[in-house]
Each structure stands twice: as structure tokens, then as C-alpha cells.
């Protein structure tokens, strides 16, 4: 009788000993698996929700969208003749004004305007409530009805304008009565622009009369199409693209309803998954420690098995089955916990994104979590089990079984290699970003190895120091270097979790700093868009007459598309996927005689200030990377159907985050002056005057849109904060796992600590001396680990921030210091608890047992 059956029988008998010693083991598996399960299942629900609501999100089965002008009647007739239902809407940004009881109370703020027709929405439900939260009946009919112009506002817009339902607001040249509060806008997620401002919904008729639609105004015209139930979306789309091949609009269908949202969510889920994996890997250390301690306690049993004729493979199967059973128990609890967390979070996420998807359990998500859990379990437990098999049965003739030293045999090495490869493959398969998967795996492995050998290195360095100190200091010093020290266990348990926490904090801090915190003294107070050509002088005069206004800069803004490069269609000419954003939408084009600020010429030459020759264009580095162009090559842009081909005169570097107006393509004078254009402007003003100038410009120039930098940064900060919460939670879980692992490592040393404390007390050491010794040991190790963690995390964060995010690196000493403090507190508290327990152990009883 041999093999798996016998192994299972023996494993079940061994399990009769209970779960003593496996608390940390189980906790590590539960925490790691729960986190991955929660992330994966929530991600699956998100994807299902986006798919389920694709038509609502998009606003139709197919969406045609173009800037400046409505879509031509020809395509509407084409689609209408085929029996498809159509709806048109227009989206633009504009300032909305409210009047208070007196002039000082009037407010204005940026809003995203949407003007809808009577067929809106084709899918989903448009829900509006009155001031008391009661749903309005037929909100579209109310909007389209005659009399005063009506508007529905986001709750946030109401708050910003300090108006209520029934109050009056100004938009463009019209006044509107606030008729309702938007509760659900089904296609908000599918809009092409990020939600940087709250929504106002009006009728198309009102928009047409508001004066907001000027030539060159950045208004997006959407035509939404609802197909028959059985219609083939792909075929219809293909027909449109073929029959209207020369049109400038963008077309999307329901199979890709919200690409930017999906991309963002993919990234977020990936980030969270990787952090969860880190938590699991940290837990792996706890698994390793627990299994090693357990197997050390089993050496006598294994030696006995061998002495009565057990084959090595039977013993291996016995303990691996036991590990598998315990691991499965932990995994099941982890999966259940993860699902519970996902279920609790789902209603909030669903409401945030206005999805209709009910919470569901996704077997694939559970499978991924289970696979990660099992692979980590076996990767970290196989080694101690294999090592323990080497115990010699001759040890049974001695009073004491010597622990088997960790050594890498061929079998051990091969097993680790195979399991590691499988784990890497799984990370690679589930990651949408394969490059990041590779970096993560390599980084995690190197960090684990580093922290393991950090402990070895600390011991080595301390051994090289001359013996120093007396009393407590001496005891602390010898504890760090003695055989059987836990130095490596402290560095490994705490190091990885701390590294992740610091890494996340530094990346978050740098990103936040780059976007919101680094507003220098030169950053403008306002960005202004949609200044018409005939308004420019009056606008500049207004600013010139206003005190504290300075640094007024204006640029022409022409919207166009990159059509071709060196005669080749742009879609075929592009060589870098990373820069595909250059083709995804219309680009802003401008012309100037002077080299723009914050730009540096990398190749070629800038044109003379009085240049009058054939079209020349200056392009940024991103264009060079996208198409591989050099000075002398040609680029053709299309502006409202007219093509302009220009020779590349130079290539510039530009910092997109310096808060000035920057363009990817800047033409020399002479090429674009006659194209339909608006103007952009920036200016600075005393912060206390911001509200007043905003109101003034909104009243004098109703079509002009102002983006107040401080408000925009507030909105962005709010979004970053929400994202940051999820990421920080995952990182904290990684650290908590590390704390549990460290607790387990210290607990495993408890008997030894008790023995030492008993001996020291017997020899006359005071309580204070013993406490000081132990706490000093832990404090030194905690501090050294923190220093190492901050160093690694800083390097990792620097690399990610500068090389991948391409932002400027900001040194954040506060984060580093707080990490060191956290590490110190953790090790000292845990060490202190263990020390007190050791000290409270009665001396006499322990010596008597000896």
C-alpha cells in the first residue's frame, strides 16, 4: 500500500493534531486570496456592466461624432431610410451663471452642456427629479416645451451655483429656469470627454439660440443610431464607412462603448491585482515560516517513518497533502471573504458609474484567485517540506533532533523553478499590460531575494563590528548575530510590505504633485477657450483694464486631423502605438512666428519671425516617435475638408504639464490664418479677484468658456483621491499581511526568548535591562529594514514616475520619514509584546521542567 491513498490517510491522521501553529499560515492565505478575489470579481462585474449597458452608455448602437458642425442630412436620410431610429445631441463646455440676492452673490462656473432632442435617449432611462426628489414625468417633453427655456442640472452644479429648482441661471445669451435635478444620464460614461465639470442638459433649440455655437466653437455633434434587434452592427457600420468614406466624423459602435473608461478601469484593476499579488507574496513568507516551523516539529515523526520503512515519496505526499488541505481551507475562506467584500463594494461602484449590472459571482475570477493562492502556497511550502525529508533516522538515537539546515537540492531547485514559472505565466496571462507583468515579476522576485539577503548582510556587517557595549546593548547586539537569529525573518516579513506601501505613497504623491501640487508662481489662473476672432480685441482690452491681471497670452486654435505623413495615410504611417492618441481625435493646430515658451528645439531650425514662404510646421517629440519623422519630411493636416501639407522645419520638446498652452503641431505664419479658428488664452490674476473676473467675462462674453485652474485642480484631486483610496487599501493589506508574518516569526522564537529571559533573570539581569535589550534589537532591525524599503521603493517609484509616466520626480521626505516611523513602531510594539510575555513566565517552573 503506497502512493497517494496512503499519503492521504497519513495526512488526515497528522491533522488530528489540530491547527496549532497554522494561524498565521491560514491568515496569510486568507488575506492574499481575499484581496485578489475582491479585485477580480469586481473587475468582472465592471466588464459585464459595461457590456450590458453598452447601448445605454454609448447612447445607441452606433454613434457618429464630429466637431464644429452637425452631421450632414445625407447620412441622417441614409440611416432614416433604412428604418433606424435616430437621435442627435450636442456637447460643449460653457460657463453657467447664477444671480444671487445681490451682485456679490452671483456665481459662475464651468459646466458640460448637453443639448438633446426629443428622441433622447435611445437606450436607458433619463431620470430627473424635482426639488423634493420626486421623479419628473416625461422630462424630455418638459424640456422641449415652449415658453421659458428650461434646464436640468447635476446636483453638484446646483450647489456650485447656489441655486435651487425654480431658480434662474444664465447660459450663453439666454436665461434658463432650473426645472429639475439630473438623477440618471444613461450615456454619461460614453461621452468622448472626461467629466471635468458637472452637467447641464437643455434642448437643442435652446442651444441654437444661446449664441454658444459660433464658427470654430469646440462643440461636438453626435448622431446616435438605434438598429433593429437583429441587425448586424458590424455590417451597418461597415456600410456607413464605405458609403461615406470621405467624411470627417468618428464612428463608434456598442462593442466599444466606453473605450477610455475601459482603459482606465483596466489599468486600475491591473494595479490593484499586482498589489494584491504582492500581499499574497508577503503572505508566502508567512507560509514558509509556518511550514518550516511545523516541519521542524515533525522531524522526529519523519525520522520514525523512515525507521519503519517509509519511502521518501510517501512522506513527501503525506505532508504536501496536509499542506494542500490546510491551504484549501484558507483559500475557501479567502474566496468567501473576497466575494463578500466585492458584494459590499459593488452597490457603491455601480452607483458611481451608473451601471445596471447586479452583483454576480464570476467563476473565472474565483479560478484566477484560487490558482494564485495554490501556486503561492506550494511555492513557499514545498521547500521546507522537501528539506525536512533529509532528516536522518539515526537522529532517533539521540535526545534531540537537530533542525535540518536549509539547502537547495536539485529536486528543491527544480520544484521552485517550475512553480515560479507557473506563477509568472499566470501573472502574464491575466495582465492586460504584459510589459508591466514582466517588470512586476522580476521586481517582486528581486525584492524578495534582496530582503532575505539584507538580513544576512546585516548579520555579517554586525559581526565585523568590534564587540561593543555592555548589558542591554551587548545583549541586543549578540541577539542580532547569534545562530538562529530572526534578523532575516524581520527584514523579509516587514521589508516587502513596507516597500509596497512606500512605493504606492511615492507614486501617488508624485502624480498628485505633478498634476495639482506643482502649480508654480508662473502657472495661470485661468485657461480661456472659444474666444471668437472678433472678440479678441475686446477681450484683451477687458483684461488690460483689470487690475492685478498679468501674463496674458493668446494663441489661435484651429481643429484639424493629421491626414497623412510623407504621402502615406496617417493610420498606416504610425509606428508607435503609444502615440496613437495623435490620431484618435481632432488635434489643436496653431500658428506663430515666435518659438513657444517652454519649448526646446531638438532638431532643425525655427523659422524667421517674418517668414512668408511655403507651409512649415514644427512638431513635438511625440509626433517624431509616432511617425519616425525628421525635419524635411511632410505632414498633411485636414481642416474642415481642406488639406494643408507642410514641411517639418523642426522638432521640439515640450513639457505638457507646465500649464501653458502647448500644441503638438505649430505652423509658421501664412498657412492657417484663413482657416476657421477661435482663440485660446491664459492669464494670471490675484486669487481674490478670480470670481469677479470670471463673472465679468461670462456676462460680457457668454460664449467664452473659462477653466479656473484652482477649481479644475480640485476636481482632479477629488478623482485622484477616490482612486487613491482603493490603491492605498490594497497596499495597507500588503503591510498588514507583513505584520502578521512578522508576528508569526516572532512567536516562533518565543520559547527561545522565554528560555533566555529565564536564564538572564536567574543570573540577575533586571527587567529593565532585558526589555531594553530586546526592544533595542527590534528597533535597530526595524529601522534598517525601513531604510532599505525606502531606498528600494524610492528607486522603483523614480523609475516608474520618470521613465513610464514621464513626469518630474519630486522628493517627498515626509513619506520616507513616516515609513521609518511606522516600521519602528511595528517592530517595537510586536517585539515588546513578545518580550513582556517572556518576562512574565515564571522562572522556577521553567527551570524545574529542565
Amino acid at each position, binding site marked *: 500500500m503506497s502512493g497517494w491513498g496512503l499519503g492521504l490517510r497519513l495526512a488526515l491522521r497528522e491533522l488530528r493534531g489540530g491547527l496549532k501553529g497554522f494561524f498565521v499560515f491560514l491568515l496569510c492565505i486568507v488575506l492574499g486570496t481575499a484581496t485578489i478575489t475582491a479585485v477580480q470579481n469586481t473587475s468582472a462585474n465592471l466588464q459585464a456592466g459595461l457590456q450590458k449597458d453598452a447601448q445605454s452608455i454609448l447612447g445607441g448602437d452606433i454613434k457618429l461624432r464630429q466637431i464644429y458642425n452637425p452631421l450632414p442630412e445625407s447620412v441622417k436620410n441614409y440611416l432614416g431610410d433604412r428604418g433606424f431610429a435616430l437621435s442627435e445631441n450636442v456637447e460643449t463646455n460653457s460657463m453657467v451663471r447664477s444671480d444671487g440676492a445681490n451682485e456679490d452673490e452671483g456665481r459662475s462656473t464651468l459646466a458640460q452642456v448637453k443639448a438633446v432632442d426629443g428622441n433622447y435617449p435611445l437606450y436607458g432611462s433619463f431620470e430627473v427629479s424635482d426639488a423634493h426628489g420626486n421623479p419628473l414625468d416625461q422630462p424630455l417633453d418638459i424640456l422641449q416645451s415652449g415658453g421659458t427655456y428650461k434646464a436640468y442640472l447635476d446636483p453638484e452644479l446646483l450647489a456650485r451655483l447656489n441655486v435651487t429648482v425654480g431658480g434662474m441661471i444664465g447660459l450663453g445669451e439666454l436665461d434658463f429656469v432650473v426645472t429639475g435635478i439630473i438623477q440618471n444620464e444613461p450615456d454619461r460614461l460614453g461621452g468622448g470627454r472626461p467629466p471635468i465639470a458637472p452637467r447641464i442638459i437643455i434642448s437643442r433649440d435652446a442651444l441654437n439660440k444661446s449664441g454658444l455655437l459660433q464658427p470654430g466653437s469646440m462643440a461636438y455633434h453626435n448622431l446616435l443610431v438605434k438598429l433593429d434587434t437583429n441587425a448586424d452592427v458590424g455590417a451597418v457600420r461597415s456600410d456607413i464607412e464605405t458609403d461615406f468614406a470621405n467624411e470627417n466624423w468618428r464612428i463608434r459602435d456598442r462593442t466599444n462603448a466606453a473605450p477610455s473608461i475601459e482603459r482606465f478601469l483596466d489599468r486600475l484593476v491591473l494595479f490593484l491585482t499586482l498589489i494584491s499579488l504582492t500581499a499574497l507574496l508577503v503572505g508566502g513568507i508567512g507560509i514558509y515560516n509556518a511550514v518550516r516551523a511545523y516541519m521542524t516539529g515533525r522531524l522526529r515523526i519523519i525520522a520514525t*517513518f523512515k525507521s519503519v*520503512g*517509509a519511502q521518501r515519496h510517501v512522506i513527501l505526499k503525506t505532508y504536501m497533502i496536509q499542506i494542500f488541505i490546510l491551504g484549501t481551507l484558507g483559500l475557501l475562506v479567502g474566496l468567501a471573504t473576497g466575494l463578500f467584500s466585492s458584494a459590499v463594494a459593488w452597490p457603491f461602484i455601480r452607483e458611481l458609474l451608473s451601471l445596471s449590472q447586479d452583483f454576480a459571482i464570476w467563476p473565472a475570477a474565483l479560478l484566477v484567485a484560487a490558482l494564485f493562492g495554490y501556486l503561492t502556497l506550494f511555492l513557499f511550502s514545498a521547500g521546507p517540506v522537501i528539506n525536512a525529508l533529509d532528516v536522518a533516522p539515526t537522529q532517533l538515537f539521540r535526545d534531540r533532533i537537530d533542525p535540518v539546515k536549509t539547502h537547495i537540492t536539485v529536486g528543491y531547485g527544480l520544484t521552485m523553478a517550475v512553480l515560479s514559472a507557473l506563477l509568472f505565466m499566470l501573472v502574464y496571462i491575466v495582465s492586460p499590460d504584459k510589459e508591466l507583468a514582466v517588470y512586476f515579476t522580476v521586481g517582486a522576485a528581486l525584492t524578495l531575494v534582496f530582503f532575505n539577503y539584507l538580513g544576512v548582510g546585516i548579520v555579517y556587517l554586525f559581526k565585523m563590528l568590534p564587540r561593543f557595549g555592555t548589558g542591554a546593548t551587548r545583549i541586543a547586539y549578540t541577539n542580532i548575530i547569534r545562530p538562529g537569529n530572526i534578523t532575516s525573518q524581520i527584514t523579509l516579513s516587514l521589508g516587502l510590505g513596507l516597500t509596497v506601501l512606500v512605493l504606492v505613497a511615492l507614486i501617488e504623491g508624485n502624480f498628485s504633485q505633478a498634476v495639482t501640487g506643482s502649480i508654480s508662481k508662473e502657472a495661470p489662473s485661468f485657461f480661456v477657450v472659444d474666444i471668437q476672432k472678433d472678440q479678441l480685441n475686446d477681450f484683451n482690452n477687458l483684461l488690460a483694464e483689470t487690475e492685478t491681471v498679468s501674463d496674458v497670452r493668446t494663441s489661435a486654435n484651429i481643429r484639424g486631423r493629421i491626414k497623412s505623413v510623407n504621402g502615406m495615410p496617417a493610420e498606416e504611417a504610425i509606428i508607435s502605438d503609444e502615440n496613437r492618441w495623435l490620431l484618435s481625435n481632432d488635434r489643436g493646430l496653431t500658428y506663430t512666428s515666435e518659438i513657444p515658451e517652454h519649448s526646446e528645439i531638438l532638431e532643425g531650425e525655427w523659422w524667421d519671425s517674418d517668414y512668408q514662404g511655403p507651409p512649415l510646421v514644427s512638431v513635438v517629440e511625440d509626433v517624431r516617435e509616432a511617425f519616425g519623422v525628421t525635419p524635411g519630411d511632410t505632414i498633411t493636416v485636414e481642416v474642415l475638408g481642406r488639406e494643408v501639407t507642410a514641411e517639418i522645419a523642426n522638432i521640439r520638446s515640450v513639457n505638457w504639464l507646465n500649464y501653458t498652452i502647448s500644441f503638438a503641431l505649430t505652423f509658421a505664419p501664412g498657412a492657417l490664418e484663413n482657416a476657421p479658428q477661435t482663440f485660446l488664452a491664459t492669464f494670471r490674476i490675484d486669487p481674490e479677484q478670480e470670481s469677479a473676473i470670471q463673472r465679468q467675462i461670462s456676462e460680457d462674453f457668454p460664449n467664452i468658456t473659462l477653466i479656473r485652474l484652482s477649481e479644475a485642480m480640485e476636481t482632479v484631486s477629488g478623482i485622484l483621491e477616490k482612486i487613491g483610496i482603493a490603491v492605498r487599501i490594497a497596499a495597507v493589506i500588503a503591510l498588514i499581511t507583513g505584520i502578521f508574518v512578522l508576528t508569526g516569526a516572532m512567536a516562533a522564537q518565543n520559547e527561545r526568548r522565554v528560555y533566555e529571559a529565564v536564564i538572564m533573570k536567574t543570573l540577575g539581569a533586571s527587567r529593565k535591562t532585558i526589555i531594553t535589550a530586546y526592544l533595542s534589537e527590534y528597533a535597530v532591525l526595524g529601522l534598517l529594514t525601513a531604510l532599505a524599503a525606502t531606498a528600494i521603493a524610492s528607486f522603483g517609484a523614480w523609475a516608474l514616475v520618470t521613465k513610464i509616466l514621464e513626469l518630474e520626480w519630486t522628493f517627498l521626505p515626509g513619506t520616507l520619514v513616516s515609513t521609518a516611523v511606522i516600521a519602528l513602531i511595528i517592530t517595537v510594539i510586536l517585539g515588546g509584546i513578545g518580550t513582556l510575555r517572556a518576562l512574565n513566565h515564571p522562572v522556577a517552573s521553567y527551570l524545574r521542567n529542565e
Partner: protein
Amino acid sequence: MTSSDTNFLTLENIDLSLSSQAGQVDILKNISLSEEKGEKIAIVGPSGSGKSSLMMIMAGLQRPSAGLVKLSGCALNDLDEAGLTEFRRENIGIVFQNFHLVPTMTALENTALPLEFSDKFSSKDEVFKKAEDVLTEVGLSHRLSHYPSQLSGGEQQRVALARALVASPKIILADEPTGNLDQETGEQIIQLLFRLADQSGMTLILITHDPDLAARCSKQIKLVDGKIENTGKV
């Protein structure tokens, strides 16, 4: 006069040296002996004389640095680890001073272990029936489902003895089998051991510090400083 070919146990020029932190240590030096089947042999000597090491070599648990070990016609030197394990399972029973029972297994399960590891039995029922029979023989039929923590020292040693006997070995090696027992219990164990050895014709080799026990054996081997000082037949 017996030749090494017909003796049950033969050790020829056995040396055992082990590495330690203090350097190379010679545990056994030039040990040679030949024993017939069915003998009861006591290995005596002061602490550190190499008694346990000698027993380990006889059991195939320790390979000698030099020399030949033959047991029941099989040269142990020629066997690899798997071969030694199998040989031990079929031919050798070991009784330890500290019993070394598995704490999470009952008396019956502990006793059955060697048979479970063997390929000889195809059914679990056969294995446990045989184990039960042996436990009955050692007087523990009423303790089959008890765990070691529920048994007295003497009962635990009986279980250990049953485990050593269950595979019908040709030789029993006992390392201070009464070392952790009181005198009365120890005497019971020794009487049981001797009786069972006589019944089955097994060879019995035991290590003991007790001169009275040594005197009850048919032969004594005295080890001093790794060498056989004298060998006496009673």
C-alpha cells in the same frame, strides 16, 4: 565454527568516522563480529563508546566509512537508500528508548505503520487485523484506539514493541528499551521482549547500561572508545 557465509549477522572491519565542528571523529574502529540467528546479544559500554553507532550500522541506518555489513545473507553496503529502506522494513524491527510513537495516531495505527509502508498487503483490513493480533500478543487489545498521550510509559513501549514485531522481522534492535521506564514496568517489557524473541526465533540485540539485563543475554559485546574490548558468551 561458523563462517561469514552462514552467520546471520556479520560485521567485517567496520570503521565509522564522522565530521564535526571539532574535526574528524573516529566513532568505531575496526569492529568485526559474527552472530548466529536467534542470539540474544547485549551491547554494553560507557557513554560515548559507540554503542548506538554500532546499532545504527547493524540496522542499515548508518553507512560505515569502511568495512562490510551482512545481514541475513544480504550485503547492506550494496543497497542504495531505497533498498536499505525496503530491507529494513522487511527484516529489522527497532525499539527506541524514547518510544518514538506518532502522537496523532492510535496504538493500532502506530503498530500498523510498517505494514502500510510495505507492498505485501493489498487490503487495509488485512493490515489492521495483523496489527491488532500483535497488539493483543503484547497485552494491549483493550488499548487499540488510544493515543500515545493516553497510554502509560510501559504501554507506549509495548506499542513500540508491537510496531517493531508486526512485520515479522528477523532481527530486533532495542536501544535502552527500558531506559525511560520504572523498574517494574521495565522488567515486564524485557520479559515480553525475550518471550517474543524466543517464540519467533528472532535475533535480539539490545543496548543496555543494566548489567543484570546484559547478563540475561546469551552474549555481551563490550565497547570501549569505539573498539570491542571483549566479547563474552554467558
